[in-house]
């Protein structure tokens, strides 16, 4: 166990991959459940994104630090236990910060446990890389996830409720598009964003 777990934070590419090139929502199309379910307001999107980022980073540290101790046969069970612990911690902290946000997110906080982005990164990256590189990768993926959720949240809240982060911006004469805060609106907006994102990426640079 003497080999280097020293922090080599990885290249900028380690970070940018999750943020843009391999964005968990827009490229890998993972974590669809929270993406579609809780992006009806900006606040919900940000809290869900940050909670997921916290779980990603914390579990990346622990999975990477113990990667040579955990026998292969029980690694998935160990990772899930580690992830579930951090999710429950995030759940308590959100309740302590704001009961109303916790109510709005409902069951989706606890369901971060089964978000495949987290187990995916633990298995594919943290279990094979140093702590520094794992944290960089987790931050990239986390912020990429938060950014994608925020993009949906901004569009859906603006059109569905006429407000941003609870502040009315469209004025009293605006008639909200109710479909935008309903699940169907999430599919419409996600589809449009995916189309725009793929068009951007496919463009010859």
């Amino acid at each position: 166990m003497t080999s280097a777990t020293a922090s080599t934070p990885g290249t900028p590419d380690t970070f940018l991959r999750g943020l843009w090139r391999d964005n968990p929502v827009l490229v890998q199309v993972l974590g669809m459940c929270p993406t579609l379910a809780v992006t009806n307001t900006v606040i919900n999107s940000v809290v869900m994104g940050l909670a997921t980022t916290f779980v990603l980073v914390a579990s990346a540290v622990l999975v990477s630090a113990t990667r040579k101790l955990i026998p292969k046969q029980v690694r998935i069970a160990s990772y899930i236990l580690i992830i579930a612990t951090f999710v429950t911690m995030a759940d308590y902290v959100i309740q302590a910060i704001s009961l109303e946000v916790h109510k709005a997110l409902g069951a989706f906080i606890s369901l971060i446990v089964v978000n495949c982005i987290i187990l995916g990164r633990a298995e594919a990256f943290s279990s094979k890389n140093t702590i520094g590189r794992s944290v960089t990768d987790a931050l990239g993926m986390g912020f990429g996830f938060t950014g994608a959720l925020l993009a949906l949240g901004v569009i859906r809240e603006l059109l569905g409720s006429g407000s941003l982060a609870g502040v009315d911006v469209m004025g009293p004469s605006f008639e909200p598009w109710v479909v935008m805060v309903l699940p169907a609106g999430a599919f419409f907006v996600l589809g449009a964003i995916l189309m725009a994102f793929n068009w951007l990426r496919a463009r010859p640079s």
Partner: protein
Amino acid sequence: MAEPEPSSESPAAGSQGTTAVRMVVVMGSVGLFAAIALVATYMLTLPRIQANRAAFLAKSITEVLPGAGRYQAFVADGQGGIAPAPEGSDGGRIFAGYDAADSLVGLAVEAQGQGYADILRLLYGFDVECRCVVGLKVLESKETPGLGNKIESDPGFTANFERLQVRADPDVLALELVKNGQKTEPYQVEGITGATVSSRAVTDILTRSTTALLPLLEANLDQLRHPPEG
């Protein structure tokens, strides 16, 4: 994604027992870490969470009972009487609100039941003398956004509960749900078009709760008016 390489540390034949022991030790350690981390987080956040819950409840009570400067919680004692609610009790409480001169302003009652999605928890204001529901606040709801959750925001629906008289006749239901625009009697609740199930859920919860509580409250009104010092 490339298959992970087989670990260079894979046990040599014959060390099967060692591996099993190691698996148990590792899982045990991870479990121990999880337990410690969770207990610590729980203990650190508990005071804040309880304060948040209490603040939300207090805010809801003030909304349902405007003018109440302080309130006291009671529960049914199961023998036709009421008793001060024990510390930390949750659900089924009756809050008696008092003004600065210590006279009873009104009652706020917790009630819950099945909604369209999950349990709906309500707090309603109740005027015993007129047998009226005089305010409604949704404490907890997972009703469909844009449809069922209009029970909290639809002005036509919330107006039902500004003064809704319950029928005390045991042969008929205390309240009745009617379609939007068809309310003619003081005990009728006008439903929301497109959210019939949620409207019915609210009406049913109130019907059950008021039917059960009305005799209890009428019998114990004096005790509520002159509460034990507290």
